[in-house]
């Protein structure tokens, strides 16, 4: 049984079919890359998975449980955590408090704030931010905020982590650091669905790649297969005219 199963998912905004009959699976322990040109429906798909949008049709099954149309605050407790394309830290909180929200309200929700604080420190340690624990999120750099967002999602103890363009806005060496972090997270048995524009990052990280174009899935397969797929090259670079 796949960890996540998406079947015939549809979402329209007025006349625009943002996600059109998309189906694919994510198996436990995999890193699946989701790519496609701007406006191809990647973020919409992620918003459908996390309850930020309600699908018009289709079925989302997570660990055998039908989670289609769940309220967005009910998604994380089932074991799915996400990051945002434009980071959304709790600006007036310290880094530690940011992470604590994930720990306290996530999958293993708790009343014990003291223990939650200690475990949240461990999450900060994991992303290399523990020395900034008492700094306010508004005083962190973009790179630190991205790490913070990752630590916060990890503290929620997800089985599936959805990463929305985590590397956007980072320079090459920072992006490499984030790549290593993601591989490190996978090694702790967390399944990852990653949306990314940087093709190199996707090909190094992903076990499998799903390609969207204009809301429709046009290809799925191993990274090397995908980057040589003529249809994928077409949508990214335009049709070659001989």
């Amino acid at each position, binding site marked *: 049984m796949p960890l996540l199963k998406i079947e015939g998912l549809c979402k329209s905004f007025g006349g625009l079919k943002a996600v059109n009959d998309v189906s694919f699976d994510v198996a436990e322990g995999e890193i699946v890359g989701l790519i496609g040109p701007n406006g191809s429906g990647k973020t919409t798909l992620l918003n459908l998975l996390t309850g930020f949008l309600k699908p018009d049709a289709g079925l989302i099954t997570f660990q055998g449980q039908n989670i289609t149309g769940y309220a967005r605050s009910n998604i994380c407790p089932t074991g799915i955590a996400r990051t945002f394309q434009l980071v959304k*830290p709790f600006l007036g909180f310290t880094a530690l408090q940011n992470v604590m929200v*994930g720990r306290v*309200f*996530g999958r293993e929700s708790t009343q014990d704030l003291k223990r939650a604080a200690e475990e949240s420190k461990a999450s900060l340690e994991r992303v290399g931010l523990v020395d900034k624990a008492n700094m306010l999120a508004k005083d962190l750099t973009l790179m630190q905020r991205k790490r913070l967002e990752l630590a916060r999602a990890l503290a929620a103890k997800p089985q599936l982590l959805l990463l929305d363009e985590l590397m956007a806005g980072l320079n090459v060496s920072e992006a490499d650091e984030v790549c290593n972090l993601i591989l490190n997270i996978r090694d702790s048995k967390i399944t990852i669905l990653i949306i990314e524009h940087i093709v190199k990052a996707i090909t190094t990280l992903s076990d499998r790649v799903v390609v969207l174009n204009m809301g429709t899935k046009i290809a799925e397969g191993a990274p090397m297969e995908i980057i040589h797929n003529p249809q994928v090259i077409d949508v990214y670079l335009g049709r070659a005219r001989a």
Partner: protein
Amino acid sequence: MNKIQITIIVILLAALLAFPQFITSESVLNLAVYVLLYVSIASSWNVLGGFAGQTNLGHAAFFGVGALVTRMLWFAGWNIFASMVIGALVAVVLALIIGVPAFRLRGVYFAIGTLALSQILLITVGNTFSTISSIPTEDLKVYSLVPRYYMFLGVALLTIVTAYVLLNSRFGLGITAVREEEDAAESLGVSALKYKMLAFGISAFFGGLTGGAFAFYHVGYYPQLTFGPEWTFDSMMMAYIGGVGTIVGPVIGAVFFVVLREFLALRFAEFHLIIFGVLFILVVLFLPDGFMGIWEKIRKRLLRRSK
């Protein structure tokens, strides 16, 4: 809390308890009652307005409902404490009914929506209960300010302690997270609507309880008085002046506000309203974290220097 803080609190508490034993001047005692009243109402406004960041411009409705229900039950022969609790609970029910549609609105629209609802209530109450409500003559014969003082002290302490416990709990973490970034909070499992409704209910409860104490205190007034928008705006101003979203902020704000108002009203009569208006604008523009913000800055600078 550290040892110094606990010592300060104990001394303050002892002073507040002993206060009416040493002070017999009625005007001073009345002033103290108003300080405590505003501490309670500003702290209760702060639970929704500060912790949850939902600017409620209809808080007077809960103060008014608390006062109205308490007054009715008390005059009908009920025990004053029972009357106040029922009054506060009616305020909670009202908040939960208002909350469902109101929380569909965000930011400015929530503020305007709650203001409109409380103004509707103000007019309705004015038309329905148009005669003056006075404490019956036989009760007036034994009327004393001291039990009123202790009533307000009790309500104020209960409000502050509850707010403190809430802010430092799981609930506090969740509701402030919703204030800081609602989408992120929801994505981590915090139900924004549930937490806002809880904050609204608690805020209304203590607003209503303060109203109940007012009903116990005030000899004669038109029921409409307790629904006036000034209760809302004064509470909000006090919270902002002292430090919105903190525990101590509304307390300091209330003391500052009431004492300054007394001072200004004696000298400038109605003109003091303009002074407060200007003061409020200055605070919002230059001290968004109020007096507590200044204190934090000083404390941080001292800490840095001592390193």
